[in-house]
C-alpha cells in the first residue's frame, strides 16, 4: 500500500485531529501572575502550594462513603450526624474547616438532591473536587427548575409518592446526602457497605449500588 496516501492517518489508523489548544484566558493569566508574585514576595512557597494541591487531590468520595456506611451501621453515629454533621465527620478525621455540614437523609418518602446555583459549593472534604457537570450552567439552573427531569437523565426515576427536596447551597452550609441503605445488606460490614456508596448517591443524583452490582 503506497504510504504517501496515508500521511494524514495516525499509527492507530485514524486521522490526526488538530490540537484543541487555545491561549490562556484572562483569569488563567491572572492566577499565574498572582501565584508567582506571592512566591516572589515570600508570602507563600511553591512547596506550600504543591502541598495544598496534594491535600486536595487526596480527598475522594471514599471519605464520604465511609461516613455513609458508618451512618448505616452505627446508630449513635447516625444520630450525631443528623444533629451536627460538621462535628460528627470531624471526629472521623474529615475536617470541613470553616464551613458547616448538614447531612440529608433519603428515604422512600423524601429524596434530597444538592446543587449550588450561584457557583459550585461542594463538600470537598468528603467528596473531593466536584465533577464538571456539577459546575455546569445546565445542572445548576435546571436542578431547581425541573429536578425530576434532571434526576431521570441521571437514571433515577422517582415515584410521585416521593417528595423531592432540592437544596441550593447558597451560603455557609455544605450538604451530603445519606442515600437509602440497599436491601439485602443486613449482615454487611461498614467496609463492605462503603463499596456500594457512589459519589452521585451522596450528591443525590443517584442511589447507592445494589449488592448484585458489585
Amino acid at each position, binding site marked *: 500500500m503506497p504510504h504517501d496516501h496515508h500521511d494524514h492517518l495516525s499509527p492507530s489508523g485514524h486521522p490526526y485531529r488538530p490540537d484543541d489548544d487555545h491561549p490562556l484566558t484572562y483569569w488563567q493569566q491572572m492566577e499565574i501572575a498572582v501565584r508567582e508574585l506571592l512566591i516572589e514576595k515570600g508570602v507563600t512557597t511553591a512547596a506550600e502550594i504543591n502541598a495544598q494541591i496534594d491535600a486536595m487531590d487526596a480527598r475522594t468520595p471514599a471519605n464520604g462513603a465511609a461516613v455513609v456506611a458508618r451512618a448505616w451501621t452505627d446508630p449513635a453515629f447516625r444520630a450525631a450526624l443528623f444533629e451536627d454533621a460538621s462535628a460528627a465527620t470531624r471526629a472521623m478525621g474529615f475536617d470541613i474547616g470553616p464551613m*458547616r455540614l448538614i447531612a440529608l437523609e433519603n428515604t422512600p418518602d423524601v429524596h434530597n438532591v444538592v446543587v449550588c446555583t450561584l457557583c459550585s459549593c461542594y463538600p470537598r472534604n468528603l467528596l473531593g473536587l466536584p465533577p464538571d457537570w456539577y459546575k455546569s450552567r445546565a445542572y445548576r439552573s435546571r436542578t431547581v427548575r425541573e429536578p425530576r427531569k434532571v434526576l431521570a437523565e441521571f437514571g433515577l426515576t422517582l415515584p*410521585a409518592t416521593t417528595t*423531592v*427536596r432540592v*437544596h*441550593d447551597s*447558597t*451560603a*455557609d452550609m455544605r450538604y451530603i446526602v445519606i442515600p437509602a441503605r440497599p436491601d439485602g445488606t443486613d449482615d454487611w460490614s461498614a467496609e463492605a457497605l462503603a463499596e456500594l456508596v457512589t459519589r452521585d448517591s451522596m450528591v443525590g443524583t443517584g442511589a447507592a449500588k445494589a449488592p448484585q452490582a458489585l
Partner: protein
Amino acid sequence: MSKRTYMRVRADMPPGHVRTPAYLRGKLGWVERTLGPFPNPEQLAYRHQGQPLPLMRMRFTMAEVWGDGTQTPDDTIDAEIYSHWLEPAEAPHAP
C-alpha cells in the same frame, strides 16, 4: 405544620456581591431551621468587617417559586438566606 414561620425574600436587585439567588427574590417560604450567626458576605466581599447575621434555611414550594405550571408543585427548594433579606409574612391561605 401550623407552627411554620413564614417569611418573604426581599424583591430587591441591588448591585454587588449578593448570595440571595435572584430566582427566590420576592418568594414566600418558611423557616426550615436557623443557622449562624455568620458574617455578612456582602460586606466580606469588599474586605469590610462582616456584620454577624442569622442565616435562615428557608423552604419554598415549587408552586411558589415557579408558579402553577410546575409539574410537581409540592416538591421543595431549600436555600440559605441571610436574615436581612427576609421580611415577616403571613402564612398563605389554604387552597
